Structure formats: structure tokens, C-alpha cells
């Protein structure tokens, strides 16, 4: 995230919060200055020094007390009014809308599904620019938190308590997200990205996610596929076209099309994929993915296969 993302909104919801934030910062900044100036003035003016007058034994002033009780109450009431409006603007009601996206937090990756089309991916969300999508947020294990600051509020992913949040982007771009509720050892590396693109690009992407990847028939990639089946990778990972639909680990059907690996720990590249498969702990020490103790040659083959999963 570059810049002060909470003040760089890219969606109407985030903008509602950002504008409120600026207003509040100004008000609070004003109060801070007032108190600081009052204190600094007092300690400068009423310092004990030779010739300084005796301290005046006063006990208080009821009028002043009322004044500095009423004034904050009025100010807070004003802030309260801003707040009520911003709550609705930044977190619009759901009404009868069925979710367009389903995000499930796992230790330590994000399962992403598009219920209406059936597309499934991990750690990388695509949305069409200018459209508001409803996200259903859930968890498969502990409490996580889904947060893409430029696009809006954060919302907890709690097992047993499904939440909903709107997501949209006014302009194309790649927006960073994080898990914002401590969820265990690799909480740090449970990031995600949201790619906002034109409607045509989004449709194309979704179609590609729905397509079943072709199975390689020969060469290193085919060897990689055989190794994948032998090593029981499908016990945790789903790859469309191959048996099983496990969600212990991320869906790998189109892993080669993603920009990040290991939920943001590294960028997606053949080199990094090699490093990951060779020894996951070298990238993400506490990841649940075991080290299969594969030889370099086997890993190369696996990478060759997975690079075909576009």
C-alpha cells in the first residue's frame, strides 16, 4: 500500500469514511491545539520565578464547568450526526441482494468464490469497475478480518457468524488487502489483492477462471501432473478437471494467472513457485503446507505443470 490509503478512497463507501475522517481530524486537531496552547501558555506565564505573584487560592467556577461540559456535548452531538450519515453511506444495507462474492478466511489464505458464476480462486479478487458487489465473509477456522482500505471498511470473518460487506472500485487498479485480525502464526502473510478492471476484462477473466485447464500430454508438464497426483496434492488442493474439491489449501486451477503466491508473501513467478514447492517454510515458516522433500528435478516438473494452469 503506498500512500495514506485510508485517505485515498477508490469507492463511494471508502470516500464516505475518508471525508468523515478529514472532518474529524480537523476537529480533533483543533481541540489538541487548544489544550496544548492553554497548557504551554500557563506553564510559561505562571512559572515560579523571583518576583512572581503568590498562587491565587481559587477553587473553581461553576459557570466554567458548565461551559466546558456543554461545549463538548454540542461538539460530540455534531460529530454524532456526521457519524450516523456516514454509517449508512459507508456500509449500505444489504436488503435482498444475494452475494456476488464469497470470501472465506483460512489460516493463512483467502478462499474466493463467485457463487453466481461458480468461479473459484484464491487470494486475488477481480471486480468490474464501477459496480457494487456484495461480499459474503466467512471463516473456516479462526477469526480473520477482510480489509481492503482503499475500497472500504474492514469486516471480521468469524466462524459461526457470517458477515456481509460491499465492494466496488471507481477506477481500475490493483488494490492491496490484508487480514486485519490476528489469526495465528502467519497472520502477517495473509494478504490479498483486488484487481478492478473494465467490464470486458472482468468477464474475460471470469471465463478463464471457469475454464477447465487442458491436461498436458507429454513433456515436463505431464511429468509434473503425475507427480502432483502421486504426492496427494489433491488431498488439500482442488484443480478443476482433476478429482476432488478440497479446500484445505487454495484452489490451484488457475494459479499461473495470479500475481502473488502464499497470500502475498512473494510475487508469483516460476522461481518463487520453485522455492515454495521445494520448501514452503523458506517463504512462510509456519504455513500448514508440509515440505514434501522433493528433489529439484521433481519440483521443476511440478512447476512446469503448474505454469500451464493459466
Amino acid at each position, binding site marked *: *500500500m*503506498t500512500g495514506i*490509503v*485510508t485517505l485515498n478512497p477508490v469507492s463511494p463507501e471508502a470516500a*464516505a*469514511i475518508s471525508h*468523515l*475522517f478529514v472532518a*474529524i*481530524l480537523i476537529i*480533533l486537531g483543533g*481541540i489538541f491545539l487548544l*489544550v*496544548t496552547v*492553554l*497548557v504551554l501558555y*500557563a*506553564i510559561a506565564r*505562571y*512559572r*515560579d520565578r523571583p518576583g512572581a*505573584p*503568590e*498562587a*491565587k*487560592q*481559587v*477553587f*473553581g467556577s461553576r459557570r466554567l*464547568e458548565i461551559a466546558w461540559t456543554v461545549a463538548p*456535548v454540542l461538539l*460530540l452531538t455534531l*460529530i*454524532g450526526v*456526521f*457519524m*450516523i450519515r*456516514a*454509517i449508512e453511506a*459507508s*456500509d449500505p444495507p444489504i436488503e435482498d441482494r444475494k452475494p456476488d462474492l464469497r470470501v472465506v478466511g483460512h*489460516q493463512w489464505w483467502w478462499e474466493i468464490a463467485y457463487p453466481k458464476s461458480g468461479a473459484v480462486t484464491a487470494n486475488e479478487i477481480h471486480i468490474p469497475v464501477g459496480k457494487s458487489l456484495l461480499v459474503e465473509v466467512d471463516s473456516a*477456522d*479462526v*477469526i480473520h478480518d477482510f*480489509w481492503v*482500505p482503499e475500497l472500504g*471498511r*474492514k*469486516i471480521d470473518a*468469524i466462524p*459461526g*457468524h457470517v458477515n456481509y460487506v460491499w465492494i466496488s472500485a471507481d477506477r481500475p487498479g490493483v488494490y492491496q488487502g*490484508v487480514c*486485519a485480525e*490476528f489469526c495465528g*502464526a502467519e*497472520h*502477517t502473510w495473509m494478504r490479498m489483492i483486488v484487481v478492478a478492471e473494465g467490464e470486458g476484462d472482468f468477464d474475460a477473466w471470469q471465463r478463464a477462471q471457469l475454464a477447465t485447464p487442458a491436461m498436458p500430454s507429454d513433456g515436463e508438464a505431464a511429468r509434473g501432473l503425475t507427480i502432483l497426483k502421486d504426492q496427494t496434492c489433491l488431498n488439500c488442493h482442488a484443480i478443476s478437471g482433476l478429482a476432488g474439491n478440497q479446500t484445505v489449501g487454495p484452489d490451484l486451477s488457475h494459479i499461473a494467472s495470479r500475481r502473488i503466491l502464499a497470500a502475498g508473501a512473494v510475487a508469483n513467478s516460476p522461481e518463487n513457485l520453485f522455492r515454495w514447492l521445494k520448501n514452503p517454510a523458506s517463504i512462510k*515458516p509456519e504455513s500448514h503446507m508440509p515440505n514434501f522433500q522433493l528433489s529439484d528435478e521433481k519440483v521443476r516438473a511440478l512447476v512446469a505443470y503448474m505454469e500451464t494452469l493459466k
Partner: protein
Amino acid sequence: MSDIAAADRIAPVEAEREGLLSWVASVDHKQIGIMYLLSGLVFFGLGGLEALIIRTQLAIPGNSIVTPDTFNQLFSMHGTTMIFLVIMPVMAGITTYVLPLMIGARDVAFPRLNALSFWIQLFGGILLYFSFVAGGAPNAGWFSYAPLSEPAYSFNNGVTYWILGLAGVGIGSLAGAINMAVTVLKLRVPGMTIRRLPLFAWITMVNSFLMIFALPVINAALVLLLADRLLNAHIFTPAFGGSAVLWQHYFWGFGHPEVYIMILPAFAIISEVIPVFSGKPIYGYEFVAASTVAIAFMSFAVWAHHMFAVGLGHLFDLFFGISTMAIAVPTGIKIFNWTATLYQGRIRFTTSMKFAVSFIVMFTIGGLSGVSFAVVPLDWQLTDTYYLVAHLHYVLFGGSIFAIFAGIYYWFPKMSGRMLDERIGNWHFWTTFIGFNLTFLVQHLLGMMGMPRRVFTYPDWPWWMTLNMISTIGAFTLLASVIIFLWNIRISLGAGAPAGDNPWDAWTLEWATTSPPPAENFALVPPVRGRRPLWDLAHPDRADELVAAASGE
């Protein structure tokens, strides 16, 4: 037999005991108070060490000073230590030392219970730290959210040690609270009516009631979590019908009053120090007292502002947002009254006063960032980020710890008979002030830039490293400040200027006896005809209640 007769029997026996062992068996509130301070200091060092390792790890991106799991143990222990083994015991120590003296009593209401409080609390702390060598310290954060804190996700015994350690600390604190409340209500010297109570005593009493109602809440939560961890129950595991959110309600039902339990004693100290070093009475005594009671009541109605991101519904969020903003009002009243006390005073800038005055500004910053969290949509962006880490440190360090330093410089002469060195104190103050702000001011910005809390590293984005590095430099500056503080104590205990009874020209009863006080506290307690007994004694024609009556108040 009467208390005085019993005391006369005990005193000569006590005088016979000498040496370290006598401290272990002591039921004297002064010795117990000092022991609280010493153990608090040790845990401050441990908690500080944990913080330094955390800041070293975070100084540059991609660092690997510690493993992720070790990092998680470090921040969990840092928070738990600073809250339960430093701030609470140190406040208890200052209170148990000062309160009986301030009300003209010989000791607290139940001296043996007082000793029990200290030793149980210490035992709880030792038990908690034992976890480091017994399979790993708790690593689920200082508030152990479920289901992360459940056996399925938290494999070692760390969280169980956390539960048991907190149980010990909790029992000690509760017993202490009951003790202090009864002491204030029943052991005041005749003449000290409730309306003449020094604010330190009044606020201590209100705080005791807070503890009496809030500590059992966490005890209940701990019992249920223990059932989950040791008996395989499922109160907080959704997979078996339990509720993870219930844990949060229980924890914060305690946790929010807890933060007031940590700041009220700070308010108590500041309300004594600022008037004395301004040379005039506290401005608006009744309002400071009444607003304290308001805060105590209201603190039970704001807990779910820690849960705005949980998704409990707008109405629910709105209620707690409004109640949280409301509690800012009585707090603000105090800030204004302390500031007004400075006006037309004759301000002596002792080290104690420097900490007290900067408390006003630091706590205001923390309080204002708290108001920004009360505004629900802002919380939706800022909670669980470094903006929150900044907020909590401004109120707990810039607030409670600064007040503790003010209190220590103020009462050290009474406790030891010697003055702390003012020149070294000046160095201590400035390194603390600069180090503290360097560490935590930038964290507001980091939070606004999207840095979540409880992460052991971060991507190498522009400015992230610079800001984190500044924060780490601040942390090491704080290390220097603590070393300077310890040096001051060491030097002054040996060669500090003799304090005399009342080095500050202060007005409350503890200054009417020797420094340190004799075992029975007072040879003779001065008459109490107002809120400032020693002022009235020194200025009979301008005694407080005379002046007040004359001006028709």
C-alpha cells in the same frame, strides 16, 4: 480488642524482625507498597525487553530476528505484562503506600489481606512467565480471542498459563480493591469527612468499586475458557455450537472497565501533583470527583466499541459509538480542570511536575484518538491497525506510565527519606518524553497507511521502513530513559539529599510525618478541617473552608 491495642501489640514484634526475611512476612502497607513497586519494575523490564525485540524485528522489512511464533509470544506477553504485571501492581503499590498515610490511618483495613494480594499477584506473574520454559508463552494476543485461543489452534499450554496467571493477578487485585474501599470508608481520621477526602483517596475508592464489578467478569470468562481448554468443552468454539463472539463480549465487558481501572489511579496521582506544584488547590474539586463517578458508571456501557468490526448491526454499533463519545465528556472535564489549576499558580517545575504536565497533553492526544475510534465508520478503517497501537500507548504510557513517574518522583522522598536527583530527573524526563513520542507518534500514520497490528514484518513499500525505523529509534531512546531512571534511584537511595517531612510544601496528611514514616505512620495526626490540612495549619487565617465560606460557595 480495639485496633489500636492490637497494633501496639504488633509494633514491637515487628521492630524485632530485621533483614530481607522480615519483608516476606510483612503486613505493613508501606513495605508491601514498596514490594509492589519493585516487582512492577522487574516486570517493566521484562515487558520492555519484549517491546525492544518487537521493535528491532520491525525496524526493517523482511527482518528475521525472531520466528513468527516467537514474535507472537512476544507481543502477547508484552501486552499482558504491561497491563497486569506493571501498571496494575505499580498503581496498587503507590495506592497501598500512600492511601493510609493520606487519610491519617495506621495501615489499611486488612493488612494480612494486603500482603496476600501482593504475593498472589506476584505468583500469578511468575506462573505466567514460567510458560516460556514450559512449552511456550501464550501466543494468542493479550486478549486471547477464540477460537484462536482454543486447543485446536493453540497447541502449547501458553494460553492455559495465561489464564492461571491472570486468575492470580485478578484475585490479588480484587482483594486489594475491597481492602482499599473499606480503608477509605472506615479508617479516615476524624474530621476527614467524605467531602474533605483528597482526590487521590476519592478516586481510589471509585476505582475500587470499578474493580469489584469488573474483575469478576474476566474471572467468569477465564473459567469458561479453561473449561474449553482443559475439559474439552466448546463454549467458544463455533464448530461445536459455541460462540466466538461471546468471548469478545465477556472479555471486553471486563476489558473496557479495565482500561479505566488503569487510568483512574493516574488521574488520582495527577490530581495531587498538579495542585501542589502550582501552589493552589485543584480547580473544580467537586467536578473532578463527580466526573470520576460518571466515568466509572459509563465504563460499563461502552465495551462493544472494541467490536465494531464484528458486524453486530448498525443499531448496536451506533449505541456503543454514542456511549463512547459520551464518556469523553467527563474525561474532558478533568483535563480542563487540571489545566485551569495551572492558571494563576506559581508553577515549580520539578521532575514530578514535568511528567504531570506532559501527562495532560499526552493523555489528551490518546483521548482524542480514542474519540476518533468512537466514530464508528472511522473505527471500521482504523481498528486493528497501528493507529490503534498508537492510541493505546498514548493513553497507557503517555497517560498511566507518565503519571506513575510523576507519582514516584513525588512520593519517593516520603518512602525513602531522600530526594531523587532533579538533574538526572530532567534527563530522565526528556529522554522519556522524546523517546515516547518518537516511538508512537508515527504509528498513527502507519495505521492510516494500512499497517495492521500484530504483524512480524511488512512489505518494502515507500515510507514504511522509515516510519518503522523512527519508531524503533524511539523505543531504544526509551531504553536509555529507563536506564537513567534506574541510575537516579540507585544514586539517590545512597546519596540523595535528605527529604525531611514535607520537601514539597504539600498539604495532605502523608507530609505530616517523617520521611520515611515510622511503623505506626504518625506520632500525632494533625487536625483535619478541610481538604488541605497542612495548608490550613500553615495559614489559619486563609484556611480553605474559611475562604470558601467567605466567598459564599
